[in-house]
């Protein structure tokens, strides 16, 4: 009974926290954007605009849902959920803190410690893409379709390098479990041993989450909004929450693999984890505010001709180092 309650509590805290964080990322994004562009940003609703995400949520909920007449209605309605569910599920294997004692039981602050943890995250990311592609197809409109096709091609290209960039860390730590990888970084974070892997990971992470400068699937200047052009109201909100959730999950993966996860001096582990994730998120926003978008052929060429060879080199070098130096 107690075990069941603890599991339920972990799920509520984990996913509730993730969703809340995702909602507040919209506020942070707009504030950071304003900061870069020397504006004020949303500051009317609540102190420093802190209630803005809630106001936005209520507004979106009461907006009329418009489904295009020519759309494939079943897929059109399902597609946002297909993006959101894997984005939430992927977070389940990320350890967000050290173990704590609740009701006399030792509880690890991770929803599920799966022994193929990182592969599970990739599997969920791969399923999540369908939401974007199907949504774009179901809208039955030209701009979303182009956005969806771009998204499919981009994700196939960058998923490879993303996986390979993490392989170095997996080889050093000898485990696929995220909990095991955090344990392996007791001495020093893996960014010291894997600087190239970290660089590759950050670049691929931007491409995987459709963020600038790789946000071609939704390039508003040419595709008016890309895959979600035809979406409105809560359907649109679900897409945008899913996007922020997957950004947070990938930031958490980055923090876990290269920055030591929840490890850190003085402050409590959960806080350290949050700080690292937020640092990644800030980087995302900073980059979006300051970089122009790539051209599509540049994006593909960069992925296949630069990132993939570099990640293979990184894997070979790491393998050699693990075998010969130990």
């Amino acid at each position, binding site marked *: 009974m107690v075990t069941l309650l603890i599991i339920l509590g972990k799920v509520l805290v984990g996913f509730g926290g993730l969703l809340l964080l995702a909602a507040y990322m919209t506020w942070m994004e707009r504030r950071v954007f304003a900061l870069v562009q020397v504006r004020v940003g949303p500051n009317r609703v609540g102190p420093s605009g802190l209630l803005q995400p809630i106001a936005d949520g209520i507004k979106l909920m009461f907006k009329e849902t418009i489904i295009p007449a020519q759309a494939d209605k079943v897929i059109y309605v399902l597609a946002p959920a297909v993006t959101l569910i894997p984005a939430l599920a992927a977070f389940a294997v990320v350890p967000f803190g050290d173990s704590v004692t609740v009701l006399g039981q030792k509880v690890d602050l991770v929803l599920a410690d799966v022994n193929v943890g990182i592969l599970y995250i990739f599997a969920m990311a791969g*399923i999540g893409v369908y939401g974007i*592609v199907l949504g774009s197809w179901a809208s039955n409109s030209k701009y979303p379709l182009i956005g969806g096709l771009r998204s499919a091609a981009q994700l196939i290209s960058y998923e490879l390098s993303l996986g390979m960039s993490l392989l170095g860390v997996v080889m050093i730590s000898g485990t696929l479990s995220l909990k095991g990888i955090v344990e392996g970084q007791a001495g020093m974070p893996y960014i010291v041993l894997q600087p190239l892997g970290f660089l590759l990971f950050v670049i691929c992470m931007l491409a995987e989450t459709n963020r600038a400068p790789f946000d071609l699937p939704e390039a508003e200047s040419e595709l008016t909004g890309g895959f979600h052009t035809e979406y409105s109201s809560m359907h649109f909100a679900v897409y945008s929450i899913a996007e922020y959730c997957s950004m947070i999950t990938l930031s958490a993966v980055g923090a876990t693999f290269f920055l030591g996860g929840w490890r850190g001096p003085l402050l409590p582990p959960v806080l350290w984890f949050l700080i690292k994730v937020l640092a990644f998120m800030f980087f995302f926003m900073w980059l979006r505010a300051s970089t122009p978008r790539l051209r599509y052929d540049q994006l593909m060429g960069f992925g296949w001709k630069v990132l993939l060879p570099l990640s293979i080199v990184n894997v070979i070098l790491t393998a050699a180092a693990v075998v010969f130096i130990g």
Partner: protein
Amino acid sequence: MASSLFFYFLAVVTTVGAIAVVAFPSPLYSVLALILTFLGLAGLYLSLHAQFVAIVQVIIYASAIMMLFLFVVMLINLGREEKRELRLPGQKLLGAIAGLAVFSMLLKVFLSTSLMTGKKGSFPPERVSELGNTQIIGNLLLTDYVLPFQAMGVLLFVGIVGAVVLARRRSR
């Protein structure tokens, strides 16, 4: 009890998905049904304690390969399947014979082995959980099965070279 319920659920999902692939008139729905089948298969692997195989099934088949299928279906904008003019003479009869042949073969297999108890292999569940799923597969691939593994590598390489050759010739 719970695990057999899980099995029946997955078996139904997988089979219904597979039937739906051929039954749907729209190619895009067929692709979606095939994804469902692959996810069901991954679940079945999971219930056999093969976590690594299950996840790889999802990553490679359910996401990467089916994404390519979806990409092609969307790119050439396939509508509903038209009535095909290309029909082999006696196509239905040949199909029925082939189907019956496979069915009788499967029936024979099931009838002859359903009551037999399996032999214990070299990797029973206890040993797998002790050594780790992924580690065992990795070790086996690079020791006992290194030749087939390398052969697959050569096959894929030939495929890539072939694709490059075909793509180049067309652009000239």
